[in-house]
């Protein structure tokens, strides 16, 4: 894999959907739709939105899963699912609890979607960890190791401390198995 460099596979940041801190969820989703319509040459569509600070630095990412999490009804402060997971409650217990609340009609509906759509991106974005960065000139072996060891679906590609693109696991997968 040493003859393929990260920059050959990455999606340039200019092609990516980006929004600024403070943007509501609904606008972030619109930005994603526009990016998907504009750039259709890859068989894998854009599935994430990058969040930038006021200076244009990438500070986080909203994946489809994060967006879905954002529209889950917040039943109350205690039934925050992450809290229950933190205190070692089982998935079975959490699923059962959800059903209880569903029975009380606290489900996703139009009213709730309206509320969720106004949430700010920083409330639910995923901040990047140190292991999620890879240099443009790194070879693919390095990138694969970072994706696999960190269980990431994409890496931020940098050049002289500037984020220049995104390396997606789908593109790496295709490149590797085409060679195979």
């Amino acid at each position, binding site marked *: 894999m040493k003859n393929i460099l990260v920059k050959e596979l990455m999606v340039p940041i200019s092609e990516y959907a980006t929004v600024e801190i403070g943007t509501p969820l609904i606008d972030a989703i619109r930005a994603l739709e526009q990016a998907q319509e504009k750039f259709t040459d890859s068989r894998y569509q854009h599935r994430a939105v990058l969040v930038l600070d006021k200076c244009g630095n990438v500070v986080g990412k909203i994946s489809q899963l994060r967006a879905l999490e954002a529209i889950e009804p917040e039943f*109350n*402060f*205690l*039934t925050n699912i992450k*809290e*229950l997971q*933190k*205190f*070692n*409650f*089982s998935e*079975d*217990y959490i699923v*059962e*609890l959800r059903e*209880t609340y569903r029975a009380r009609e606290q489900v996703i509906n139009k009213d709730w979607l309206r509320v969720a759509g106004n949430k700010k991106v920083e409330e639910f974005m995923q901040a990047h960890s140190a292991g999620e960065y890879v240099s443009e000139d790194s070879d693919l072996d390095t990138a694969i190791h970072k994706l696999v060891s960190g269980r990431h679906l994409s890496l931020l590609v940098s050049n002289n401390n500037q984020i220049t693109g995104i390396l997606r696991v789908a593109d790496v997968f295709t490149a590797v198995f085409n060679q195979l």
Partner: protein
Amino acid sequence: MSELIKLYQRIVQRVNINLRELNFDVNPYAEHLIAMEQMRSFYAFYGITTDHPLDLHFEHSALAGSYFLGKCKVKNSILYKTDVRGDELKRKDEVRKFQNFTLTLKNDEIIDIEDCILIKTLIHNFSHDPETPERFFIGDTLSMDYANIHGAPTNGCFLGPFATVDLTRMRDCAIGAYSYIQAREISHTQTDPGTVWIYSPGDFNFLYKYPQEALAEYIRLSTDMVPLGKLIDFIEEREENFGRVFDAANLDTVDSIPDTSSLDRYAVILPTFSIGENVLISQRAYIENSSLGKGANAQENCIIVDSILDGYNVSAHGAKIYHAHLQQGVFTGFNSFICGSADNPVTIGKDSIVMPHTIIDAEEKLEIPDEHIVWGLVRNRRELATNCISLEKLADIRGGISLGNMHFEGNGKLLVQAFKDRIHHILEVNGAFFSDNKNDGHAQRNQKLSLNTIQPFQFGEMEGMYPSIRIRP
């Protein structure tokens, strides 16, 4: 710069290094904890008894107003009005079992405190870390007012005011004010104020979280991180009475205490009171216009006022009971606050359990039936309905239940049994069942206790620090 300030700064840095992953800075909490005048003014004291090994080792530490019993080492630490009670430590040649392992202890267990700031904290029981059975260590830790470190070896932690960690090995954690944690082992965990978590892996899991706004009425931190709220007010209203017992060299004996009961020399007892047989009243406990029946106890920092305890009542460390009638066998857990009034008293039925860190603040007359368990914040009958269940119903639960802000998963019978066993054990070690010179416990043994004091440096760079000293038989 004085040695005490240098020591303080060093400990804060050590705690912060341990808590860096949680991004938790103890500086704001620590800033107003140490008052030089108080560190210099109060003496430290220690107990001598034939019942426990005596080996106290103080090195480069400040110990103002603190109490020590048993085998204990304090190094590079600042303790203020902290009780280190080594009367339940494991003993040499004791055989301990853990899972499939059996171990015979080679030495008497020691409480080992290093690089800590502990303010009005209680340290008691023994190490529940099977990897260090002979060393109950507390290191790189800062604890605020009325925290309890009970059988919980601790390293690199912060405990907010009234936080309790019980029978749990804890590493690099920040425990919020009025939180109670009993979870065998935790690490790199931060809890919000008012988190009550009892977790026994594979058996049961209990979680209750106080509504933050309501909890703030009882305990909160001011902008400069000084504890405020009803709990603090309740203690401070009575604090003046402790001055007399700590300042006087000799106190009159209280004749109406039975021979089988023990009233600690550093407890306050005010008329009118009635104390039954086999009662234990520990140091820093406060009893006023109350009756404690046979086998009842009031542990450290308990306040019992205008109340009746029928007998065999455990009032665990920091429990506060006001205008209440606790029938026989009622257990009041750590730092619980049962607050009735003359118009709205609280009655708790026989063998009921008030879980640790429960606040019952009666806006109306409240009656908890026999053999029930109550938790969390209860101010009226509506809140009682979601924060109380009969022990029988709880014992029948398999799977899960969510009631109000409480979540429970697992085998309810095991939780009920765990409480019952523990209550029986506490009564036993406190001497509640003493009869015909058998089954003696703290209530009887504490009568053979004598006390000595040690003083800090009053001037110079070492002001407020204590001389390094080792005390052995």
